[in-house]
């Protein structure tokens, strides 16, 4: 008797006899639900529960806000900051980014943690109505791109990898940007990119990338390595993160889970 759940066995059987059809994974199911809500121009909230609680708020088919209990939410003051705010183009752009970034960050988390979505709750007025909406297709494309970058980083660092400052530097002198310095001075025992993101109210994805850069500069070391498939020890600092590869290699599909699987590329030293 197979130990697989009946639903999983059914999906495997479907995939085996219908080779042209990809099995429906969690990411595809959520993506299909989001696309359906976009097509119907829905306004309201799609709640998520399970591995990561949260919600995605819609207005006229666009996503205006997403929240996850595992990522920092946008400041309340930024909720109305979007494209209509006064100021220079740069300040308007950064204000829009301040709303969009936590929304994308939360969506990545909701789709990666395999949170279950519940029944859509329609509403006449969406939350944060003044903030600019993000098209569902744009959002899913960006989420898929970020998931592929997280797959690249997974052998070195994830959002939940414990990192520590490296007391021994090979370089005689080294320079870091202010956002990286803010991370460096906050690293304590048990610090993870996710915890640092919460502390600084930044996106978990962006913080994980900055931690990766600090690892590449040998200013940090990971103290809780993720074991590789096959029992090999991870080789820190031997993976190159590439935005181009994340775009070119992608087929636009949203996957379930941050996919801590072996990346499908050869490793290249990052030492500069």
């Amino acid at each position, binding site marked *: 008797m197979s130990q697989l759940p009946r639903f999983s066995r059914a999906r495997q059987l479907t995939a085996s006899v219908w080779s042209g059809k990809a099995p429906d994974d969690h990411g595809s199911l959520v993506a299909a639900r989001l696309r359906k809500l976009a097509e119907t121009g829905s306004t309201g909230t799609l709640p998520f529960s399970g591995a990561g609680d949260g919600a995605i708020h819609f207005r006229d088919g666009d996503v205006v806000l997403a929240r996850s209990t595992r990522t920092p939410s946008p400041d309340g003051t930024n909720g109305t900051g979007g*494209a209509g705010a006064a100021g220079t*183009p740069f300040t308007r*752009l950064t204000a829009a980014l301040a709303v969009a970034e936590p929304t994308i960050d939360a969506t990545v988390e909701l789709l990666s943690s395999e949170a279950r979505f519940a029944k859509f709750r329609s509403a006449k007025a969406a939350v944060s109505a003044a903030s*600019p909406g993000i098209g569902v297709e744009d959002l899913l494309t*960006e989420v898929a791109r970020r998931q592929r970058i997280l797959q690249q980083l997974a052998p070195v660092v994830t959002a939940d990898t414990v990192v520590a400052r490296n007391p021994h530097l090979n370089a005689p002198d080294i*320079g870091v940007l202010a956002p990286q310095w803010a991370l460096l001075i906050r690293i304590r025992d048990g610090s993870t990119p996710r915890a640092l993101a919460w502390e600084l109210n930044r996106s978990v994805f962006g913080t994980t990338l900055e931690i990766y850069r600090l690892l590449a500069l040998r200013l940090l070391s990971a103290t809780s390595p993720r074991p590789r498939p096959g029992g090999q020890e991870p080789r820190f600092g031997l993976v190159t993160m*590439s935005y181009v*590869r994340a*775009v070119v290699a992608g087929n636009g599909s949203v996957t379930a889970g941050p996919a801590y699987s072996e990346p499908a590329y*050869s490793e290249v030293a990052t030492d500069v």
Partner: protein
Amino acid sequence: MPVLRCFRACANLRSLTGFRPGGRSARKGTFVILSEADTLLAPVTEIDGFVLAGLVDVSTGMVLASRQVADEMSLPAVAAGAADIAHVLSLLGGQLAADEALEDVMVTFGRHFHVIYPVSPDPDARIVLLVVLDRSRTNLAMARRDIRSFCTNFVS
């Protein structure tokens, strides 16, 4: 200000990014978070030989706004390349510990110039403007002046 000014990549970007020309083509879609992006980038489109432009957040690689006059190249791939270059140069800057900021990057391909310019004088604001220009129709010096002027107006 003496800065790292010209990063001439007459060689290809393969060694830098692992890009395989024969691989699967990139998606055409772009990501725009600012509804007035078209208006914002309008001055850049007036540069002779303009092909495409985009504002890219280097810290995440996300395209924030874009304009493209022809569909001859993939904006997501080009923008990702610009973010990768800025990322590599930030690692280089970190290792050199030079007390200076990146001013601009110019990549020269056979038919195109790719100009990458940080839009904010603050090095911590990691948003860059990427402009791709047709080499046969562009005066590079004039284009650089126009891009610099655009970025100055963008933040003031």
